[in-house]
């Protein structure tokens, strides 16, 4: 890893030990609070949009290093950071970008239009110069700004005039709002006429950052399992001495290490869509597998929130649903692998 990213990694580790490690359950379960969000912003974690080459796009490498390391302790904080950067990258208004960067405002992009089928995610239409209607699955609905698709196919930034509706169940990332929204707004901007295409591209660009969070979660939860297996005894032996547990976790850590190397290789170059999707696909599966095994190693204690394991189990699945759709991603992946449309009869 290049020196600047090693410094960044070290900065996030310090941040975790100062603000997150002793607070991670609260940051997972309760709203993060303005003070904490401001601290995150002050670190520059929300300002990676517009920091890429030539000042365009996002510095994906830096963002991914930050996300991976935040996710080791608090996946919800990593996801919040991803959402803020993803939002910022989509807008051009300096005032809005500044408000996101300094943590005074928050924004979200609704990818649900891509994740569920047509007619399942509500409807937003233009009527008399206003955007009206509602959206069903808005992750980050407690944000100040929402970017979403309109029925017309345009991508709109709703700046005000929306209210949150029915709150959805929260398997993971419970500190981040997740509900439907109702919109009646004249305060909006059209970001693109070809909204779905732009949204698809934004979704694809999430592959590596999402994989970074999944990998960070895998590292965080497996470390807890390794630590526990070294001190907890049963039948007169440390848990690490029992083959079923030792072999299972060792195999998953091996997989994680290989994926991490692949991840860092990709960060060192310009990953193709195929490589990014390979990484995302495998990292999400690994996060689910390794959190299950880590919970299992903790036995009954793993089932209790105080041990900080069960949240990884929930978050791993939530991540793979909120930023991933098996059907959609596998169709794309199969197409890239076959170098032609595949997975359609």
């Amino acid at each position, binding site marked *: 890893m290049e020196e600047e990213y090693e410094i960044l990694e070290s900065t996030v580790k310090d941040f975790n030990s100062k603000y997150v490690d002793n607070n991670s359950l609260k940051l997972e379960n309760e709203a993060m609070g303005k003070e904490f969000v401001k601290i995150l912003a002050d670190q520059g974690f929300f300002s990676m949009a517009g920091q890429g080459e030539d000042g365009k796009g996002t510095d994906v490498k830096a963002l991914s290093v930050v996300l991976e390391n935040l996710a080791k302790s608090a996946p919800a904080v990593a996801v919040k950071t991803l959402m803020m950067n993803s939002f910022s990258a989509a807008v051009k208004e300096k005032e809005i970008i500044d408000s996101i960067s300094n943590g005074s405002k928050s924004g979200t992009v609704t990818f*649900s239009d891509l*994740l*569920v*089928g047509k007619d*399942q995610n509500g409807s937003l239409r233009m009527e008399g110069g206003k955007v009206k209607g509602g959206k069903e*699955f808005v992750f980050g609905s407690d944000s100040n700004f929402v970017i979403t698709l309109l029925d017309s196919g345009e991508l709109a930034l709703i700046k005000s005039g929306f209210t949150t509706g029915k709150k*959805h*169940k929260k*398997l993971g990332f419970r500190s981040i709002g997740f509900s439907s929204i109702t919109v009646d707004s004249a305060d909006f901007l059209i970001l693109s006429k070809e909204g779905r295409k732009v949204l698809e591209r934004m979704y694809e660009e999430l592959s590596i950052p999402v994989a970074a969070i999944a990998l960070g979660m895998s590292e965080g939860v497996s470390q807890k399992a390794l630590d526990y297996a070294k001190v907890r*005894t*049963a*039948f*007169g032996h440390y848990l690490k001495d*029992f083959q*079923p*547990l030792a072999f299972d976790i060792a195999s998953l850590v091996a997989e994680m290490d290989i994926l991490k190397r692949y991840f860092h290789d990709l960060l060192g170059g310009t990953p193709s869509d195929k490589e990014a999707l390979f990484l995302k696909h495998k990292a999400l599966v690994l996060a*689910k597998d390794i959190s*299950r095994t880590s*919970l*299992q190693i903790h*036995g*009954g204690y*793993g*089932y*209790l*929130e*105080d041990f900080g394991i*069960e949240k990884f*189990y*929930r978050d791993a*699945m*939530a991540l*793979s*649903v*909120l930023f991933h*759709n*098996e*059907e959609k991603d*596998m169709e794309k992946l199969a197409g890239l692998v076959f170098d032609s449309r595949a997975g*359609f*009869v």
Partner: protein
Amino acid sequence: MDFELSDEAKEAIGKAKEFARTHFTEEVAERSDREEQFPTDIVAISKKEKILDFSNPWKVLVTIEELVRRDPGLGISVTISAFGSEIFMLFGNDEQKEKYMNPVFAGQKTLGLGVTEPGGGSDVANIKTEARLDGDTYILNGGKMFISNGQIADYFLVLARTSPPPSSEKKHRGLSVFVVDAKSPGFAVNKLHGKLGVRATNTAELIFNNVRVPKENIVGEEGKGFYYIMTFFNISRIYVAAQGLGIAHGALDRLVEYSKKYGEMSETGELNENLQLAIAEIATRVEAARNLTYKAASYLFKFTPNPIITSMSKYYAADTAVFSTRRAMELMSLHGLTTDLERFFRDAKILDIWEGTTEVEKLIITRMMLKEEGA
């Protein structure tokens, strides 16, 4: 070989289905889960309506499966009030059966079983709770962990050490089972909060601080407690397998329903093959788990228990529950995340752990097989 359930069992399924439809509303299930609240009212109704008919174990088995299929937290809460009663049935004396077991079967009292300890987990023989004879009473000191019905049980069957083990290899000797009244002085309970799933069930830590237990409250023979508990686990694991079947089948129900409403169609107008194959795989695993569970039950209910098949059924049904909820979540996308399926996903994981972890079950299977073959 007959794979058909009896008419009585079929009737029990119908009764359970109707009870769950009436009382396990999403509002109640969601609230019980969110507030970690034991469904006292529903359990009382279930007892009044005699949802569990203890005179026929097949009816108990299929009732558990059906209620859990509707909602795991509520289903387990309703069907766990007699947890441990088989120990009375097999090893208790007439007075104990009359005084403790019958009121539980009549729905008047609730039972709990105290085996697992904070430092013990699967290592049952290594428990630290002690019972020291003092005149006509035993004095219990120690603690138990992750005890179902901990806060609501009237009586507990508690495993405690009554004499030192003859050697470090024979720690399972010198353990005894006692009936402890929850009102006993020195007995305290701490409810455990923040569980991943089955949050409607009541789980607690038990503390025994010089709790005096009458000598007549020892169940069976002194020193044979480990054997009694292992015998009980070979029964209860079949009911846990039924919980697994219920959860897995519940996930399948939801995935099938989703596929009808929202399943993506291929260009030929059929349901996408990926979804079709997942449904087939889950359905096959549920059926295989059911056959194993019913086979284990069949041996047990004829009083010829087969611990190998029992452990296979518990391990496989638990794994199927975890597998099915995970696959359904992955395929249903945001629909899974925002419906009661997410609760099933959280609930399923405990089955990998309680009543013997999956790893323990696998070890039992192999060791028993090798033993049978004289290895």
